[in-house]
């Protein structure tokens, strides 16, 4: 198939897999196109911390041979992907982008890595992230990824390399992880799709933890269809993860419809559009237009109330950092110099929390789950902003920023609900904006349906950054 490098690298998984299945696109040719593009532009984007060109080409050759023999495994077969550098990969360094784990080489794959291998994916390399899934652009190991829409701006975090790689056409799909917004934030700021599944929907086994009771694993892709295809492969029970759910996994592709007739959309305006959130005008306008589009597609829209949202959402940060402190305590005391400044200070500060703070936070979580469940009796999906503003300039990054404004993503980590960021426009300066869609636990299909219908109508994903 004679096609330019950028045409190949800007195919969606859905488009590429149809060609691969019909033997019109070679996984080796596709992988080589990505490796060439990485060589050409990743020096600027910095999305990969450990590229794996040789093993990627070998995996692509195996995929191609299997497909030629008629052993086509499904929509991810021969598809080049990248993984955030907190997924354990057997024999490949996995650092959490921290000097603490600079030489850490796992002896076993994470469960999701095994699942992706079994689906026939090609691993292009390990992707940049904020240190230990918290931090900020400055980490103790490796350079940080840049936003492909403007290389002077942040990607958001913590799945920074995942967001940058997908946006720049440096991977067809990737996995991020989300404890307080680490999939949805960079997805919004990089103009891609990021899906945080329900807590327990995808195994966390072999994933470096930030917070055991909040961490979720999910896809970051160019289209909602691609996110559904990746989720299909990674979802499901894992006996190695004690919090993994036995809830049956539906066919997510069945949700890829193009209208929203009968869908009830709720907007928790009192919290997500409140003055203290500090929405910029471009973001507010883009989200309002996005919600209007959902209506035009056949949904009914109403405002909803989650009474305790404002008072109880800070529980997310308390739980996250308290659990992170417990996980990192030994290293924080024995080798504090190997942590980046931001991560070290925030992890250590969690030692000031009392047991009552942690327990009250877990009780707050129960209350919010109850209040969201009541609201979800009236609506099927909720729509709201992901971030208050577009990507900040790297020089203006303020690590305190997310501490002092209300979290727009944390509520869905606290409640375990599935939530997605889908591109919904651009600012006047050309930076992407994301709309957040959330639904009841294990109802990823509703989020996918709303996101896909919106995306197919709005078509913001037709625009690509020029790097």
């Amino acid at each position, binding site marked *: 198939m004679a096609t330019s490098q950028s045409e190949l690298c800007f195919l969606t998984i859905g488009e590429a897999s149809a060609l691969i299945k019909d033997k019109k696109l070679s996984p080796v040719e596709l992988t080589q196109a990505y490796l060439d593009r990485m060589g050409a532009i990743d020096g600027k984007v910095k999305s990969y911390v450990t590229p794996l060109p040789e093993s990627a080409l070998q995996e692509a050759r195996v995929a191609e041979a299997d497909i030629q023999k008629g052993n086509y495994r499904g929509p991810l077969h021969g598809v080049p992907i990248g993984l955030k550098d907190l997924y354990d990969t057997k024999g490949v360094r996995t650092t959490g982008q921290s000097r603490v784990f600079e030489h850490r080489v796992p002896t076993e794959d994470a469960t999701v890595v095994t699942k992706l291998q079994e689906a026939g994916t090609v691993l292009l390399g390990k992707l940049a992230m904020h240190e230990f899934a918290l931090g900020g652009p400055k980490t103790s190991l490796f350079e940080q990824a840049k936003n492909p829409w403007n290389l002077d701006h942040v990607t958001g975090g913590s799945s920074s390399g995942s967001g940058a790689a997908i946006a720049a056409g440096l991977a067809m799909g990737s996995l991020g992880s989300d404890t307080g917004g680490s999939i949805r934030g960079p997805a919004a700021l990089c103009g891609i799709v990021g899906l945080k599944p329900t807590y327990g929907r995808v195994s966390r086994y072999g994933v470096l933890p930030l917070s055991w009771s909040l961490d979720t694993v999910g896809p970051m892709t160019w289209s909602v269809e691609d996110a559904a295809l990746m989720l299909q492969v990674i979802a499901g029970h894992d006996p190695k993860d*004690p919090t993994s759910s036995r809830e049956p996994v539906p066919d997510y592709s069945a949700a890829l419809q193009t209208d929203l007739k009968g869908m009830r959309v709720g907007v928790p305006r009192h919290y997500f559009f409140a003055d203290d959130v500090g929405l910029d005008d471009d973001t507010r306008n883009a989200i309002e237009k996005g919600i209007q589009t959902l209506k035009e597609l056949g949904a009914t829209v109403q405002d909803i109330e989650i009474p305790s949202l404002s008072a*109880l959402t*800070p529980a997310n940060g308390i739980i996250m950092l308290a659990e992170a402190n417990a996980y990192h305590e030994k290293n924080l005391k024995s080798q504090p110099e190997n942590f980046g400044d931001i991560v070290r*200070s925030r992890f*250590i500060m969690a030692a000031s929390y009392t047991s009552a*703070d942690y327990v009250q936070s877990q*009780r*707050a979580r129960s209350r919010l789950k109850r209040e969201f469940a009541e609201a979800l009796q009236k609506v099927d999906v909720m729509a709201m902003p992901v971030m208050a503003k577009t990507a900040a300039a790297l020089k203006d990054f303020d690590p305190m920023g997310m501490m002092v404004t209300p979290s727009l993503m944390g509520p869905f980590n606290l409640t375990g609900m599935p939530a997605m960021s889908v591109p919904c426009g651009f600012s006047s300066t050309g930076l992407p904006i994301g709309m957040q869609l959330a639904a009841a636990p294990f109802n990823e299909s509703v989020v996918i349906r709303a996101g896909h219908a919106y995306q197919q109508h709005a078509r913001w994903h037709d625009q690509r950054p020029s790097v």
Partner: protein
Amino acid sequence: MEIGSKEELRVLLEHAGYDVPDDELDGMLRVYQVTQERLKVLHAADLDDEEVAGAFSPKMTGA
């Protein structure tokens, strides 16, 4: 001792086994104060008989 003061933070962290340099403590203080304000609101919330979210199950043992 002032609520949310640098001295309070130092004592708390020392008690937890962390010896944080003074300049780093300066940087942490603002985050600490913001967190303390939010914790006040969190503790003031009337959660009635709400239990903790994470329910222990003796069958959840992993592999």
